């Protein structure tokens, strides 16, 4: 279709990844120079733009570009690079977000105190993610995956002065290593005894017996990276610890690479699914969605709140994937295409609005030095542009029309409503429950973002830092506004996104949704116009007309009599900012409902003794039940074992020799006995 021809798109993409890899050592040299970090981020933004363009061409071209085989490679496998529709779609998604985040970082990174700890790893991180999407064989996939993990680990550990960040980096490293290990096993099972590690060979190998194990391993490996409960533990620790533009990439982009890994393994490589495969995915996804948003509601740290919302959104994406598995296994191709389109659409949307929200929180953090919402407030006056962009992100993530979050969640619900067509009764029973969970989570997410936006930007400043905040720099503002605009566009024109995903559906399912762009009035019709349709542009138009009409009516017919009165005089004539509604009080009703079970929440009221003039105290005690139930015992076990093994550090030379000899003799005995 294009003059370039699909044949050198793979070379171009590989060249861009190579350029990013080259940029890392260069960045070490120039990071401390005056414009060093800006130049590096700018180069990253350019490379991401180029990659996004290449991916777009690859996605739109009628035949996928030919893969290239590199001369360099690992001893056991060939290195094959190239985009197929699935890889191209994800590459487009992540590079759009990455380009804008890098643009933001040009401005934001200039304030970094120690840029040399962040800048060199940033291009390597992007290169790793792109390598995962570009690879056509398991080895380069895993190399890219590890590159991504280690570079992001270094970024999480960049501010290693605080013990909290060091702990976050350690937890992240352990989880990332475990995840990569399970993926390694999954690929090993897929390759089978013949050991063909190219994706094409895996696709043709029959591995029916190992397929369920592959599913479980993929769910653990990709799920630990994406943040599925209970493997999400690292996410709320690591995402806030990194600098904000890196948090945006990790939360908005890297988790998507994990979703890609899951789709690649389960939908593409593992062969035709059985119906029960969808059950673990749906159950885990439903729990993830609900717990993610509940944790987020209890959180008053802006970045941690956003990280927990990433957990929730990954749950939504996996609900779509689980539905697609269920429908595909039962031969309901159209419904499967709808579910998968919804999931990948949500991937796209989440990459936009979560990046936007993290960038906004970064702007707030830089302006005030605060992440705690209880010490923010009133920033809409000091930072109007950031507030506007953040509001757009909040609306989008709360799934309110006309922004993009609504469309993908609506599509997911449409897929859920098709579940009565399923022949098996177990998913017919589970899917509606998951749907109810999703609805509940969507409402709670909206609550949570009312809290996040309201406590941060509305009301009056709760600290002097917030009162003296300054609007962020121009680069950052432009990047955030562009992301907000993309959120709106994807919500108003969803048909184009759904049509662009059609090649992916054809590749994975052999079916696609009806063509949307031919529908009149920009509306989308996922199944049948008699059943359901949504028109984002119409909703936008209605909102605009209703708002204009309201404004007009208020201006025209409301009383013009002016009355001046003290501000905030609702019973508090000289109210201090501390008398405002706080994030904690906002979350209290939800905490009352869910807290007792999920968080073992306790409220302690300490009344002063009669005659004591001290204040009464209300203390809230929350437990991270999952951490205490699953992770803490493992940590205690490891501690106990290491304490015993530690003795080995202090043996005499002769005892070490004895150990070596005993091991040798033991092995010889085993050899002798088994022969």
């Amino acid at each position, binding site marked *: 279709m294009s003059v370039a021809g699909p044949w050198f798109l793979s070379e171009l993409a590989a060249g861009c990844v190579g350029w990013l890899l080259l940029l890392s050592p260069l960045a070490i040299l120039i990071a401390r120079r005056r414009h060093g970090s800006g130049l590096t981020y700018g180069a990253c933004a350019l490379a991401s733009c180029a990659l996004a363009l290449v991916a777009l061409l690859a996605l739109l071209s009628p035949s996928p570009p030919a893969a290239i085989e590199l001369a360099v490679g690992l001893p056991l496998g060939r290195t094959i690079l190239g985009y197929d529709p699935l890889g191209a779609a994800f590459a487009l998604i992540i590079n759009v977000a990455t380009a804008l985040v890098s643009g933001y970082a040009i401005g934001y990174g200039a304030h970094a105190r120690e840029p040399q700890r962040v800048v060199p790893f940033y291009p390597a991180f992007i290169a790793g993610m792109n390598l995962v999407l570009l690879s056509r064989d398991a080895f380069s996939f895993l190399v890219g995956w590890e590159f991504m993990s280690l570079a992001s680990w270094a970024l999480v550990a960049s501010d290693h002065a605080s013990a909290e960040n060091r702990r976050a980096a350690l937890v992240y490293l352990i989880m990332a290593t475990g995840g990569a290990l399970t993926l390694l096993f999954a690929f090993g099972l897929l390759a089978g005894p013949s050991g063909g590690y190219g994706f094409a060979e895996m696709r043709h190998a029959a591995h029916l017996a190992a397929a369920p194990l592959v599913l479980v391993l993929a769910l653990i490996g990709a799920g630990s990276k994406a943040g599925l409960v209970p493997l999400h533990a690292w996410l709320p620790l690591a995402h806030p610890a990194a600098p904000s533009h890196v948090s945006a990439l990790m939360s908005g982009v890297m988790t998507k690479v994990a979703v890609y890994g899951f789709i690649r393994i389960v939908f593409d490589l593992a062969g035709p699914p059985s119906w029960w495969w969808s059950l673990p995915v749906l159950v885990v996804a439903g729990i993830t969605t609900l717990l993610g948003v509940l944790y987020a509601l209890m959180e008053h740290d802006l970045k941690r709140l956003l990280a927990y919302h990433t957990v929730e959104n990954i749950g939504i994406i996996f609900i779509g994937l689980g539905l697609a598995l269920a429908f595909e296994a039962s031969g309901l191709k159209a419904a499967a295409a709808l579910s998968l389109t919804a999931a990948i659409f949500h991937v796209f949307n989440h990459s936009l609005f979560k990046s936007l929200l993290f960038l906004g929180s970064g702007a707030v953090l830089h302006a005030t030095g605060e992440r705690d919402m209880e010490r923010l407030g009133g920033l809409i006056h000091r930072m109007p542009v950031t507030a506007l962009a953040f509001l757009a992100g909040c609306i989008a993530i709360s799934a309110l029309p006309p922004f993009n979050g609504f469309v993908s969640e609506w599509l997911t619900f449409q897929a859920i409503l098709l579940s009565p067509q399923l022949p098996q009764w177990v998913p017919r029973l589970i899917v509606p429950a998951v749907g109810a969970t999703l609805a509940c989570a969507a409402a709670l997410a909206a609550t949570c973002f009312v809290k996040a936006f309201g406590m941060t930007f509305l009301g009056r400043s709760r600290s002097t830092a917030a009162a003296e905040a300054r609007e962020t720099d121009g680069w950052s503002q432009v990047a955030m506004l562009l992301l907000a605009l993309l959120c709106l566009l994807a919500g108003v024109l969803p048909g184009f996104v759904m049509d662009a995903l059609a090649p992916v559906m054809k590749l994975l399912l052999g079916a696609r949704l009806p063509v949307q762009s031919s529908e009149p009035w920009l509306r989308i019709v996922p199944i049948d116009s008699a059943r359901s349709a949504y028109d984002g542009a119409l909703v936008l138009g209605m909102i605009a007309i209703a708002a204009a009409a309201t404004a007009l009516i208020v201006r025209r017919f409301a009383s013009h009599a002016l009355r001046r009165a003290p501000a905030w005089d609702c019973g508090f004539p000289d109210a201090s900012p501390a008398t405002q509604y706080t994030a904690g009080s906002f979350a209290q009703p939800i905490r009352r409902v869910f807290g007792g079970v999920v968080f073992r929440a306790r409220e302690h009221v300490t009344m002063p003794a009669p005659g004591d003039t001290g204040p009464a105290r209300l203390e809230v005690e929350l437990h991270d039940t999952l951490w205490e139930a699953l992770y803490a015992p493992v940590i205690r076990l490891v501690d106990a074992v290491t304490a015993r093994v530690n003795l080995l550090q202090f043996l005499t030379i002769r005892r070490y*020799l004895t150990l070596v000899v005993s091991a040798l003799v033991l092995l010889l005995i085993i050899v002798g006995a088994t022969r």
Partner: protein
Amino acid sequence: MTPLDSDIAHLLAGSMLLVSFLLLYQDRMFALLNFFALHACVLALSVGWQAYLQRAPHLYITALIALAFKGVFIPVALHRIVVRLGIHRTIEAVVSIGPTMLIGMALVALAIVVMLPVTATEGVFVREDLAFALSVLLLGLLMMITRRNAVSQVIGFMSLENGLILAATGARGMPLVVEISVAFSILIAFLVIGMFLFRIRERFDTVDLQALDMSRGEASGGEA
């Protein structure tokens, strides 16, 4: 290869194993050194016989190196060191002689059990030679871990290396370069260890390795 040829080869390799046991049995330093020299001489004979059997002239050089270095030079040098350090009296064994011998016999049995099935496809000569060599090696290791004196540990190490050479020559095809470099590395190891012996002695007034452990602050009571 006539039956007599392989019988002689077995005799020589078997003698090495016997001398290894003799090494384990010694509780005097000078006797230990003498038996080590004997060990090396038997090795030289064995390698020489292999050279004759395999028509491999370079193995004669190997035999010569073994005889010169390990049969003469190292024992003499160790002898002088022992005299200068005045430690010829006793060899302090961690495990007493009797149990050590029993363990040694068990190790030999293990070596045979392991080696014979593994090398079932090889010629009868290679099989038993490898079993002997592994036994010698394991006995050398056993000596290293049951003796506390640094000199006897050196001897254990050297007899272990003799076992390696025996295995290598039996397997037909150890290049001379490898042999020479192994010989040199042994020599270097000997020099370094010798120097350390004096250093240890200067510092601690003893070559009992327990003193070293104490200096690390980790002597955990009696090691005997």
